[in-house]
Each structure stands twice: as structure tokens, then as C-alpha cells.
């Protein structure tokens, strides 16, 4: 069942929470809305759920206009950050509740509750109250309650953010497996880029009510459109250096060797990426840089400020004439204070728009 948002706005007084979002989530897709708090991702999700009404725009679920429909007529299920379980009911009755409201027969209800509880591994807790369960168990109950009636669309609002890191990782995998087996269209809201990257078929990165970029996780990682996306995705974040497009088409950069190493294909994109003043950024992921001899071709001479050996990788913080950035290497023999040449792999050099560029002017991939 596809979910189609067209030009959806939500304003609270003078504040615009969602600024004209248009996106089509395909049938069976796992779609993530990712962004910092206050970027409008939860508001967008709540509008799909029917818990908020849009100020402007239309929302279609499976071709039917549901913009002003009540939540119960949308055939959606939702998992909340704080679980939203009914504290006065046992786990069994919590899971049973949506079926009861829909007047499903008692035997059928019992069968479905038991089946769903088994699938989520909470059979032994059916008699308990939500208050007697741990965070992870409660989230399982909330998932079971959502899945018990085979909804068309599953909405999740930061369902894992109240869990500890280890549990979060295992639940992440479990949720992904579950919804892909069931083939339910899922819209998932998170501020955790790792979660989004690991689970989503497509990610929409949101900032200040706009969907800045909508693309597959790897596309977003490899080709971030704007400085915001580049900063938000990846840890450590992408290194970015201020650059400008000259009239003759030449690109100047604060670290010129990187601009010179840009492949022709990337260079040709400059007119679309640059803002009205010709400003743009040259970006490269830290792990696509290498350390080498000083003075090489397309190398930037820098001094090592400090080194973070993390075991699997090593973060090397360098300073090139006042420009500080980070290089991720395997293991290094250099020490803080050493002079090194920093090389960028040319095919991984990117032109990135500054934040002043109107994101919607860029179109969506």
C-alpha cells in the first residue's frame, strides 16, 4: 500500500513545522525520516497517522485521499517512542484491543494474539501488566499490538530510542526482518543515522520542515546534496572545504589541490550545485583520504594535531594551514606533530551545496 504526500504543510501559529513536503512511499517499502529534533519528521508522521491535520496539502494511502480522515479509518498501525501501552490492561488485552474494537470474534482474537505474541517472543508475559515489563519487552508488546491486525501501513516514531544501545541494535535487526517478511509499507522516524542507514530502503533527511534529500542510504552517504546532509550522515562527518566557482568554470578551494583533483564529471555539476554567489563546498569522506609523503601531486601538506586509535580504525586529526579536518585510516605509525601529505581519492571528491541553497530547488532523486 503506497503512501503519497503531496505538498503537505503544517503550521503552528507563525511556526512552520512541515514546509511543503512531497514524497511517495512505495508499497512494501521501508522508508525512514531522519533528522535532528524539531525538523518536522514526527509531525509529518503524525499527519500520515491522522493525529495531526495538515494546514495544506493532501495525503493519499493506497490511492484514497485520507487527508482529513480519522486515524481509525486509515488502516494504519503505529509504534510510539513511549510505547503507548494501556497500563490498566494485561499484555494479552493490550494486544487484543484493536481486534476487540473491530469486533473480531473471541476465538479468532485469542488465536491471533497467541500467534503474534509467539512471533515476537512475548508469550510468557501475556498475563502481566505493562508496568511489570522491561523497556524492550514493552516495545515488543507495542509492536505485537500494531501487527496483530495486519495493517496496511506501519508507522514507527523513534520506537527504539528509550532502549539501551545493545538492545537497540538487536531490536533494529528484528524489526527490519519482521516488516520485510510481512511486506508492510513502513514509515520510520528516527534521529539516529545508524538506525536509518541500517534499516531503510530509502531515507528522507529532514531539516527545518524540509525534506532536504530523499535517496537510498548509500546514495545519501556517497552523494550528499547539501552541507546539512553531509554533516548529519556519517561519523566522523564528511570533511568539507569552502570553494567557489569562477566565471571561467574553474573551481577554487581553500585547499586547492583537492579542487584540482576533482574528476571532470563532478566538475561539470558545479553550476547546479553553486549558490547565487558561486559558493559551494568540496567534500570528501574521511575514510576516502590517505596519508602519504609531503609534497606529492594533489597532496595537501598538513600537520597531525592528535590521533584517536579506535582499534578497527584510527581517526587522525590534521591541520592544513588553519583548515582542520579528519582522516580515517587503518593503523598509523605517525605521531602528533608530524608533517604529512594528505591525499584524496579523486573519484570520491564531491561538490556539495552550501545550506543557503533552497533544497526544494534541487529536486529529489
Amino acid at each position, binding site marked *: 500500500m503506497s503512501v503519497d504526500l503531496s505538498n503537505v504543510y503544517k503550521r503552528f501559529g507563525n511556526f512552520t513545522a512541515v514546509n511543503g513536503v512531497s514524497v511517495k512511499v512505495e508499497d512494501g517499502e521501508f522508508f525512514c525520516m531522519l533528522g535532528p529534533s524539531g525538523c518536522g519528521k514526527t509531525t509529518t508522521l503524525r499527519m500520515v497517522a491522522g*493525529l495531526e491535520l495538515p494546514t495544506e496539502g493532501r495525503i493519499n494511502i493506497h490511492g484514497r485521499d485520507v487527508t482529513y480522515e480519522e486515524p*481509525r479509518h486509515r488502516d494504519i498501525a503505529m509504534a510510539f517512542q513511549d510505547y503507548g501501552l494501556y*497500563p490498566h490492561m494485561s499484555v494479552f488485552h493490550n494486544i487484543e*484491543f484493536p481486534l476487540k*474494537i473491530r469486533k473480531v470474534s473471541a476465538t479468532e482474537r485469542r488465536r491471533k494474539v497467541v500467534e503474534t505474541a509467539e512471533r515476537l517472543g512475548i508469550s510468557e508475559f501475556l498475563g502481566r501488566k505493562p508496568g511489570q515489563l522491561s523497556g524492550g519487552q514493552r516495545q515488543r508488546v507495542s509492536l505485537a499490538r500494531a501487527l496483530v491486525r495486519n495493517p496496511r501501513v506501519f508507522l514507527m516514531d523513534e520506537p527504539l530510542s528509550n532502549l539501551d544501545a545493545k538492545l537497540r541494535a538487536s531490536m533494529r535487526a528484528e524489526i527490519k526482518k519482521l516488516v520485510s517478511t510481512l511486506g508492510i509499507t513502513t514509515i520510520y522516524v528516527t534521529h539516529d543515522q545508524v538506525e536509518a542507514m541500517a534499516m531503510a530502503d530509502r531515507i528522507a533527511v529532514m531539516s527545518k520542515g524540509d525534506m532536504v534529500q530523499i535517496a537510498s542510504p548509500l546514495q545519501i552517504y556517497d552523494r550528499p546534496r547539501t552541507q546539512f546532509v553531509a554533516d548529519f550522515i556519517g561519523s566522523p562527518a564528511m570533511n568539507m572545504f569552502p570553494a567557489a566557482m569562477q566565471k571561467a568554470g574553474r573551481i577554487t578551494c581553500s585547499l586547492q589541490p583537492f579542487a584540482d583533483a576533482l574528476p571532470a564529471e563532478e566538475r561539470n555539476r558545479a553550476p547546479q550545485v553553486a549558490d547565487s554567489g558561486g559558493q559551494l563546498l568540496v567534500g570528501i569522506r574521511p575514510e576516502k583520504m590517505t596519508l602519504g609523503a609531503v609534497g606529492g601531486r594533489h597532496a595537501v601538506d598538513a600537520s597531525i594535531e592528535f590521533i584517536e586509535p579506535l582499534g578497527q580504525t584510527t581517526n587522525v586529526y590534521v591541520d592544513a594551514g588553519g583548515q582542520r579536518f579528519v582522516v580515517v585510516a587503518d593503523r598509523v605509525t605517525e605521531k602528533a606533530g608530524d608533517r604529512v601529505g594528505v591525499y584524496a581519492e579523486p573519484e570520491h571528491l564531491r561538490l556539495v551545496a552550501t545550506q543557503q541553497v533552497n533544497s526544494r530547488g534541487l529536486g529529489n532523486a
Partner: protein
Amino acid sequence: MRSSLRPGLKPVSILYWLMALAATAFFLFPIYWMASSSLKSDLDVGTYPPVWLFTPSLHSYEQLFKEMGALDALWNSCFIVGISTCLAMMAGTLAAYALARFDVSGKNVLAFEVLSIRMLPPIVSVIPLFIIAKQLGIFDTPWLLIACYTLSGLPFVVWVMRVFIQEIPQSIEEAALIDGCSHFQAFWRITLPLLLPGLAATMVIVFMFAWNEFLLASILTSREAKTLPVIAANAIKPKAISFGLASAAGVLMSLPVVVLVLMMQRYLVRGLTLGAVKG
């Protein structure tokens, strides 16, 4: 060894027990005094030093029911206070729900307006009420007191229930909406059961306010709609106070409240401590 660890045998614990016992005795004594005085004869009631052992007699109660019309007053009190408490609870809880959950413009001003009813001393409004009631022809009818008590109970219900409702996470109701409930079903099936402790605590307090109310009842009624507090006050006669009669009226007045509190005890403990609902 083991027995010395038992908390009951520690000197400090014994001290606590004694203090608790003393406090209970201190607070229970007036009630005992009222109950025993109501069973004393007219002669015993006024003697000094007080008589501790006496032959109980029901003559104060007899006088109360036969001469003072306490049965009618009891019925009036139950009817008036029962209906006004129910009305105040229903209207107040729904208003509180709207104030707590919906985006009503200027709702803080609205809530303050409701509270301002409470700021007016009843004595200020009693004369205008008397005149209006006379002109409307509802003077000395239960409906007048029902209206007054509902109105004076409302602000309390609205303000207290608003806090109870805000305590319930909104996501619980939203989950119900998504699970297939209408707004009303979500309120009825999910919110209301969670509100029970708060409702019980609020109801008992509103009931007690109205049950004990004397000023309005004494001025806005004359014969037909008299309530128990008015009858009890009649025990104080111009020449002397009939202590036996007053005590019997006191016992009669206390009984329904005691019964109500006992019935609601289960909820009251949770309701009065707030924060009873956790997800």
C-alpha cells in the same frame, strides 16, 4: 538473636506505636464523644464531671426524626448532594478533558474564569441568589440548591481533574485512536478507567463540600428543601443548646460520608497521592 531483630520489640518501634496510638486517640475522641452524647439521656449529657458509664437511650434520635423532620432532611440532602455531585463531576471532567487535551484558544483565561467562581465568598452572592430564586419561583426547592452546589463544585473538579488528565500520557489515547477507537471510545475505554482514582478522590471531596454546606442551605430554603446541616443547627435553641440532639444530628450527618469514604478507599489512597498512572 532473631527475636531481638524483630521490629516490634525495638524500643524505638514501641515508641512509634505509642505515638500513633496517642494520635489516633486524640483524633477519635471527639467522634467518640459525639457518638456517646447522642446516646445519653438529657440529664447525663450536661453533667459535670462527665458520666462515662450510662444506659444508652435512643431518645435523641427519636426526637430528631419525629420532631425535627430529619428523615425529610436526610432525603433532601442525599437527593440534592447526590445529583449536584454527579452533575459537577460529569460536566467538570469533560471540561477538564477539553482544557487538558484540546487546542482551545485562550484556555488559560477560560480556566481562570472557572476558578474565579471559587473566589467569590458565598455570603456575597446569597442575597442576590435569594431574590433571583424568589422571582423565578424556585425558592425552597431542591433544584435551587442543586444548581448552587453544582456551580460551586465545578471549579474544583475542573482544576483537579485537569491535572489528573494531564498526568496520563497522550500517546496512550493516540494509540487507542490508531487501534480503531473514536475520540469518545478512547475517552470511555482507555482514559476513564485510568482516571478512576482521581475521579473517586475528587468526588469524595466535592460530595463533602456540598454535604456540609450550611450558609446557602439555611437562607435559600425554608421548609420543603431543608438539608441536614440546617436541621443540625436547629438543635441550638435560643435558650439552650440541646447537646444530645446536636450529637445525634452529627452522627446522622457523618454516616454517609464515612460509608462513601470506606467504599472509595481503594481508589482514594492512589488518587490522593497523584501520579497514579505510569505507562
